[in-house]
């Protein structure tokens, strides 16, 4: 319980259960209100409509769950914050399914933005009514592919990208009931793709019934770290367990 005067805080949180159907934008607004409710001394932008200084990491697609979302916030200089209490306080102010698992101060000067720092993400994907054989075939097909193409619209123009270079690792996990499970590790630089996009490139019928981001990695010359390490006990809500 040592009060410290941080300027910038990094928070790690989950997004699970019903609340995973909120958008990235919704999540930002939910956070803004929760931070106000906890009466944190947030730093605000200047100007006519001051907004709190908050920086989110890589956007998470609406409907996807996550064990590892990140948020950086700036506080008024000289603010004193009790971390031990804050995580619980914030989790209480946030909707069910969004829980703060770790909080730590980050040095503001050297801090690279989360989007730039993160190099890859690990995803767990569930495919309802897909057999283990089919799952194995899919994994082989993905790994064997020379190219995995996706077309995106950018500034009103179609652009085709090859996703294959971002596929760093892929494995089949133990199925749960009739749901096959896969784990992807996908690179995010210079451009990241989603596991459902990779699956669709092989077979458009393969639509995941559930997707969860389990890790965001920062690769520093072969040494992998997380923006904030995972908490000692994984924070999962009942709903996550049910899903």
């Amino acid at each position, binding site marked *: 319980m040592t009060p410290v005067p941080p300027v910038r805080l990094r928070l790690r949180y989950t997004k699970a259960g*019903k*609340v995973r159907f*909120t958008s990235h934008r919704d999540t930002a607004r*939910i956070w803004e209100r929760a931070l*106000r409710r906890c009466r944190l001394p947030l730093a605000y932008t200047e100007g*006519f409509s001051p907004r709190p200084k908050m920086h989110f990491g890589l956007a998470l697609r609406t*409907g996807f769950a996550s064990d590892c979302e990140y948020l950086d916030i700036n506080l008024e200089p000289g603010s004193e914050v009790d971390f031990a209490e804050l995580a619980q306080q914030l989790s209480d102010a946030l909707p069910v399914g969004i829980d703060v698992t770790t909080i730590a101060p980050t040095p503001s000067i050297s801090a690279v933005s989360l989007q730039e720092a993160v190099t890859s993400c690990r995803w767990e994907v569930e495919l309802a009514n897909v057999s283990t054989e089919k799952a194995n075939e899919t994994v082989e097909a993905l790994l064997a592919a020379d190219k995995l193409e996706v077309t995106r619209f950018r500034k009103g123009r179609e652009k085709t990208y090859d996703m294959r270079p971002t596929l760093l690792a892929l494995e089949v996990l133990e199925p749960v009931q009739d749901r096959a499970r896969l784990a992807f590790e996908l690179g995010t630089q210079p451009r990241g793709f989603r596991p459902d996009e990779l699956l669709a490139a092989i077979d458009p019928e393969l639509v995941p*019934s559930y997707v969860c981001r389990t890790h965001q990695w920062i690769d520093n010359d072969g040494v992998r770290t997380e923006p904030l390490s995972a908490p000692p006990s994984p924070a999962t809500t009942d709903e996550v367990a049910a899903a």
Partner: protein
Amino acid sequence: MTTMWSELEPILAQVEKPARYIGCEDGAQQPSHDPSLTAWLMLYPDTYEVGLPNQGLQILYEIVNERDDAVAERSYAPWHDMETELRARNLPLFSVDTHRPANEFDIFAFNLSAELTYTNLLNCVDLSGIPVRTENRSLIDPVIAVGGHCTYNPEPIADFVDIVVLGDGEEVVGEITDVLTAWKAELATFDLSDPAAAEACPLTRRDLWARLAQVEGVYAPALYDVTYDGPVITSFTPNHPDAPETIEKRTITDLGEWPYPKNQLVPLTEVVHDRLNVEVFRGCTRGCRFCQAGMITRPVRERPADQVRTMIQDGLKRTGYDEVALTSLSTADFSGIEQVVADSVGQSDGNEGGDNGCSPVSISLPSLRVDAFTVGIAAEVQKARRTGLTFAPEAGSWRMRQVINKLITEEDLYAAVESAFSQGWRRMKLYFLIGLPTETDEDTLGIARLGRNCVEIGKRYHQSASVTLSVGGFVPKPFTPFQWFGQNTGIELQRKVNLLRDDLRKDKSVKLKWHDPSATAIEGLLSRGDRRVGQVIEQVWRNGGTFQEWSEFFELDRWLDAVADAGLTLEDYANRHRTEDEHLPWDHLSAGLHKDFLWQEWRDALAEVGLEDCRWTPCYDCGACTGYALEHVVASATPPAGGSQGTGQDLARGGAVPVTLSPRPVGASAGS
């Protein structure tokens, strides 16, 4: 089946804005159901974004959930994509709180604030697997109930709703629960799943209507028969011995006893009016003759100022909102508004140990009065963001404003506008109605003239000053002095819009916006229609006409075809002037207002005679207080400061005709 969540999850991954359907808001409840409890489903027949902020439904949601014998959940009209998925999978509409199938509730309570949502009401009922017409409903189908401003003429939807509730819902919701809880207990003594036992059950849906109709303020349309001769009603008679001749609205006397919502819902996704809302008073007696809300919600009942302060303070702390709206029909009229505003602004100041952390709080005052005093308050609350300000002078000439009894002088308007521009605002939005009774082209063009004059004032302060004129076609509403007036046709309204557009063609700083005159025409049909209009609504719905409030889905021809197929005409319902002796479709309902008061007001309107606010002047016996032994609840014995809209009106400077007080003889009543 008690929760449909697992069926919904795969659908949510596919539809637009899935957060509309998940609930989970702060303030949302997860009630446990039990067959002995009366289960309410509070419904708003438009999207979640439009419906969630509805304060009426939120209040009832809390009050019902506080009871031991009832539970309440919420639902909203599903968007097209969700509807398609539900129908394809044969799934019913569901609640957003526990995702329970809608048909497992005992009563649906719809809030009706806009006539064009009627087709969505039918769609929600149908999606729940319930017959849309009351006559086809079984003993165990949920009760379809409606409340809200539109229900002061519920006749167009009379064939689709089991009961209509008039007026404030806070008390009546409990009385209806009592009836339903007893009814359910009685029904439970019969095994309705066994056809033979069900056959022997002596209870009928008609019995339920009759029991509910004993609750004051509750109208069960099926208990009445109507006959017609051409466009007019010749008789309206109860067909059940227990059906009352007249149904009176409900009025709560003391808003201070109802500090609801205590836990305003904080949505997870963006909605309209996304802020803390605190209702500071109900009712309005300024007496604008076009305004149904002002007429049907009389008398004025202020919330105690201390309670307002507490609700703001606790609400901001609990929700984390950085904006609070002080709501009412004319918030600047609230006694001691300046003090409440000053205290609230002070409250948000974190450096003084304020209660909302350190964030800047903004206060919004919807329905601003048009005077410099009001702008002063606005300046107090909008220290930072002085972008735009909105006023509603409603009509372009003093003559026209006397007809509608919105007694704003031109000096008032210019003083307000000058004060706003001089204090940093750059954009002004002015609301007007066109198609008002006795309106001439000169009156219409007066709107453009006012707009130009306002811009001219603005240019003295800012080169970029601009004014937007927002123009809507007037729809006469039941229980207003204009209920007898024949509405302008869509073509006439369009001509007036064109008149303004041509006149303003060269003025770059005056922008004109207008409401689609064809939608206004259909609102006219639905506002003053009788039961025969029901088949029109049903046909439009059957042909896919949902979300008619959304201009991209509104199709005039679909409505016109349905009107023609029903053998009716728009002219008869919307454009025809009614006579004093005509039996109006809502004559069996009472908003407390004496019909002869309204008729006298209509005559005075035509004579261009104004009428002062009765809060601080003698009562005119309109009936709203006198009929129910009520009084205004106003903290301040003196009228608010300000221009001619306060009392002691200094109207001489506004025009040649001073306001004449028209006292009404006490006791005369044709309306009740």
